[in-house]
């Protein structure tokens, strides 16, 4: 449903733009269009899981680069894994957050085709995960909190990625992140698929945007594995329970960050403000914890993350 609404909104926006560019503006038509746009957005309540997957993957959905621009100051980008490669699908560096130095990083999908290709559509290889770990290790050295933005279709399944140890790179990140002695906050902003998402997601607090999704695998991959039919992905979306609301119930995430009706892309500024508010609150929570306690807190969180369903007899 959201897909059709979104396509109509894009059309309306184009029509409005056309009218605006004319010398003699058709005010009446513009009013009708704006009214329709308003009504369409209002219809985007009570979304189905597959609608959320659509929004989570929306091309105009705010990206890690925009979050860093809007929420942080004085950003200094760091590149490379220092082992032989730079992987553009992980973007990160040092920045100030309300005057406090932090390390910030996330999956980068890119904003146009050229950028998409450069960052492999946000699908890191092992070099990307090693780059992320390099930045996080440094954050620990200098006592900087770490903020990660999760938005990936998954770790890249390719020959080179396998040659260079994709599995080991992800495993090492999971292990090392669990023991970091600084606060780690992860925010799922778009789609968080599989170990490729979790590899930068072992955090003290995991926040998730209202229309973001987070799952064991992409819905297409899930349908393909279980039913040998990737076309059944809508069904998989419902089966997998991948929405922020589901994950809150599962105890896998800590907080849901509200979005404007119709999705984050319709009002990015409001989203940045909201992320800022939640982030400040989480960082404040951990500011008084000792390095040992921070590491213990994270360990315990993941040790007991399945407690709602786990029953040892």
């Amino acid at each position, binding site marked *: 449903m959201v897909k059709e609404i979104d396509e109509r909104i894009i059309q309306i926006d184009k029509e409005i733009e056309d009218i605006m560019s004319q010398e003699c503006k058709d005010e009446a038509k513009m009013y009708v269009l704006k009214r329709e746009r308003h009504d369409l957005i209002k219809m985007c309540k009570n979304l189905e899981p597959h609608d959320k997957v659509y929004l989570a993957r929306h091309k105009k959905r705010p990206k890690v680069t925009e979050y860093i621009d809007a929420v942080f100051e004085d950003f200094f980008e760091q590149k490379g894994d220092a082992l032989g490669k730079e992987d553009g699908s992980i973007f990160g560096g040092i920045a100030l957050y309300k005057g406090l130095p932090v390390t910030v990083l996330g999956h980068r999908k890119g904003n146009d085709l050229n950028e998409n290709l450069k960052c492999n559509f946000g699908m890191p290889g092992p070099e990307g995960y090693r780059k992320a770990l390099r930045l996080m290790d440094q954050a620990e050295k200098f006592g900087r909190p770490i903020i990660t933005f999760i938005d990936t279709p998954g*770790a*890249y*399944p*390719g*020959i080179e*990625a*396998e*040659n*260079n*140890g*994709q*599995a*080991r790179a*992800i*495993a*090492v990140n*999971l*292990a*090392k992140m*669990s*023991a970091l002695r600084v606060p780690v906050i992860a925010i799922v902003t778009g789609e968080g698929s*599989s*170990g490729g998402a*979790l*590899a930068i*997601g*072992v955090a003290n607090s995991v926040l998730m945007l209202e229309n973001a999704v*987070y*799952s*064991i*695998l992409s819905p297409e*991959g*899930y349908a*393909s*594995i*279980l039913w*040998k039919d990737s076309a059944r992905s809508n069904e998989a979306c419902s*089966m*997998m*329970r*991948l929405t922020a609301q*589901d*994950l809150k119930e*599962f105890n*896998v995430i800590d907080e849901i960050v509200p979005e404007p009706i119709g999705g984050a892309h319709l009002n990015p500024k409001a989203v940045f403000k909201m992320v800022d508010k939640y982030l400040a609150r989480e960082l404040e929570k951990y500011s008084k914890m000792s390095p040992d306690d921070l590491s213990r807190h*994270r*360990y315990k969180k*993941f*040790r007991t*993350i*399945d407690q*709602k*369903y*786990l*029953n*040892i*007899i």
Partner: protein
Amino acid sequence: MKLSVNKLFKKNVKQENGEYDNVATEQKQDEKITLKEKNENSSDETLECPKCKQIFNKKDVKENMNVCMACGYHYVVSADRRIKLLVDQGSFRPLKCKVAFSNPLSYPDYEEKIKSLQEKTGLEEAAYTGVGKIDGYETVIAVLSSKFLMGSMGMAVGEKITNAFEYADRKKLPIIVFAASGGARMQEGIVSLMQMAKTSAAVEKFSTNGGLYISVLTHPTTGGVSASFAMLGDITLAEPGALIGFAGPRVIEQTIGQKLPEGFQRSEFQQEHGFVDQIVSRDKMRDTLAHILRLHCKRGK
């Protein structure tokens, strides 16, 4: 040892049996062996090796540690037999960590599936853990079984593995894990994904406290298991010809739109790329493990 991956692969494509086609093929072969063992004790049952195509008496193959006498092809071996082949007689006792069935996604027919697998394999779940002695050295041992829902890691497997590392940490014992898994368990959704973080964190804690972890990768070790505890060993061994990697071969082929090179993601490939210390055939496994344990035991036995 070279594997005729191509032959295997052709056979699998025909079967169209899902994500880990090749695995399923080999597994079926192995199931035949165990089934026959149960049903009849006839000694003239034969078996065609999927690799070299030679025909052998099933009983002889079984007595040869489920390894083909001609080409060294390693058949899947059950968890309890794996342990029997490994430990000093009578030294093994299972760890108590029984996890009740739970179905977080309310996945249809999941409980029936688990129950029937429990009956068929005699295992509680896809992981089996315990403590035993290898050549006198006491060690924690965890074995995943590919016969139990492809050795996939859901809550029960994640908990058993984590529990084994925590036990080894408390008792200051080394741990040996035999991995065999298609990855995270799809039927339990995101909760399965979280087991990757849970188990990896347990390995890290154990490791920081100075514990020795030997990871043995067997056929197959992929997905969420290879991308968590299986790839975190201090020493990593692999059985010959095992499929080891992150993404399954079919997924990679679909993504890149080309056939994968022969031997891709096999043990020998992983060793060449620096991720496996030694490839160890089944008949040498016990001696090799004892050797490593000896080298880490400061005061000897």
